[in-house]
């Protein structure tokens, strides 16, 4: 299942009637099973793109094809779109509302056509996937949980619908380093088991290390896209846009000014470490 985006534009209309273009003529495609990152500075249109992909906004112009079908065409089955795509918005913990964790997670399945046993099985699976002991957590109030637990419950609510495409808007903002790492490992596992993952993030190191493809947006335009390594490798563009390089790339740039030229292909920490080991142990140094 691939997503094809064709010349997609979207404008918000302000109270004054003034139109603000949030996306301008974006075209790209996302293959089934991919792990795609969307990056760009605040206000570049990342969240708007996610909302368009989820069918929550209708484009001002252009098309989104899922399975070759235009999701905004008259007569398109929106129900099947909702079952295919799951979206975890920024700060999902604020979306919790039910009296128990179990009811909250089950809410999205209400109109799914599944029978009670199937719903219960999905809820249990989703909560266990998010690291909870089902019996311990099911009757608790979601509002009494810690911030990190709330976020996991909110994500379980999306997982319970077993979407084939999972989209996350800034899922790791506000998580501590190990929280970030375990969450990224979890979505990598989901991806490896066949789920297509699309993740919006400001975290350059996370995007660099975990995604396979990147879409780079700036002021509503798609300014670069491709394999993650290739995009990070095109460093001149990254410098000119407002979101910089990985820390390893910054160190390489600074070292080249200090007369140690390392390969410009170095992007991650591991790349840098092995290049430095090679360079500094050469000729018995160290």
């Amino acid at each position: 299942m691939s997503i094809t985006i064709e010349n997609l534009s979207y404008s918000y209309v302000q109270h004054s009637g003034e139109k603000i273009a949030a996306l301008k003529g974006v075209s790209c495609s996302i293959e089934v099973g991919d792990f795609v990152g969307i990056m760009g500075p605040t206000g570049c249109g990342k969240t708007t793109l996610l909302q368009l992909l989820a069918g929550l906004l209708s484009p001002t112009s252009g098309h989104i094809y899922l399975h070759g079908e235009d999701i905004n065409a008259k007569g398109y089955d929106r129900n099947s779109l909702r079952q295919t795509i799951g979206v975890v918005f920024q700060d999902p913990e604020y979306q919790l509302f039910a009296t128990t964790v179990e009811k909250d997670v089950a809410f999205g399945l209400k109109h799914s056509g599944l029978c009670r046993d199937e719903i219960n099985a999905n809820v249990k699976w989703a909560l266990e996937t998010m690291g909870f002991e089902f019996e311990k957590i099911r009757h608790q109030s979601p509002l009494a949980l810690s911030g990190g637990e709330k976020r996991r419950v909110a994500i379980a609510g999306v997982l319970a619908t077993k979407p084939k495409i999972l989209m996350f808007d800034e899922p790791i903002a506000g998580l501590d380093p190990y929280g970030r790492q375990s969450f990224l490992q979890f979505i990598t596992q989901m991806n490896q088991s066949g789920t297509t993952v699309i993740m919006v993030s400001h975290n350059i190191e996370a995007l660099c290390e975990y995604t396979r493809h990147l879409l780079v947006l700036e002021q509503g335009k798609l300014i670069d896209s491709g394999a993650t390594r290739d995009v990070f490798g095109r460093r001149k563009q990254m410098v000119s846009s407002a979101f910089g390089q990985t820390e390893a790339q910054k160190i390489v740039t600074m070292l080249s000014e200090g007369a140690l030229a390392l390969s410009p292909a170095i992007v991650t920490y591991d790349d840098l470490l092995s290049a430095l080991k090679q360079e500094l142990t050469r000729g018995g140094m160290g």
Partner: protein
Amino acid sequence: MIVEGKQICFSYDLGGTSFALQNVDLSIAQGEFVTILGCNGSGKSTLVKQINALLPLQQGELTVAQIDVRNEQDVWLLRRICGMVFQNPDNQFVSSVVAEDIAFGLENYEVPRREIPDRVQAALELVEMEGYEQRAPNTLSGGQKQRVALAGVLALEPEIIIFDEATAMLDPSGRQEVIKIMHKLHKAGKTIIAITHYVEEAVTADKIILMHQGRVLSCGKPQAILTNLELMGEAGMMVPMPVRLYYDLQQAGVHLNRCPLTDEELVEEICQLRSKT
């Protein structure tokens, strides 16, 4: 000491069986830049919310600018002296116009109306947002929004400014904008207390308070804390990349002269090592 706390304990649970803070001692000097570092749930936010009485002090002692935080009649004075910027800039706006938003706190403190425009202007200059007076906050970037939220705090001329993960939701350039203003305020003599998960933001602090499970695990200079693998590991934190690189290179038999904290120090050490040959 502008902030002095002894044996602070706090529990969100009414029965008091699980503690968010346990026997925390705290001392922050006037004009100091202190970073509070620790993983989610370590008690960082709970601690700073005691400093400006957003949470009541349950056990222990705490004075801020010689005010006992338990004195309810001083709570408004305390919050004027000690301003706070939160994580999500969107949750901090009360008006649809930047200048009115900044004036909101001043109006609440009954600052004479004629003084308000100048105070708003001065605050906007401090955060380098002059010219944005009539803009709607929702049209600003993340970094700009946080700077407006900060201007609302600065208009009250506080002595202490607390940043509760104020950079967590910003893009890299927005983060840099806010960090730059934090340091500018510090240079101007303000006491800065910054909570963060980003260890690289802690590198330039005067002092780091490392928290874990409601306790102060360690307190000291960045060099002593951020280069201590064991301590940082115990706190559930990762060390800055230059520190990690220093130890990984050491394992490979490459010995840098000292453990660098910043990218600049790392580059300097590597260049020095190379120049020896």
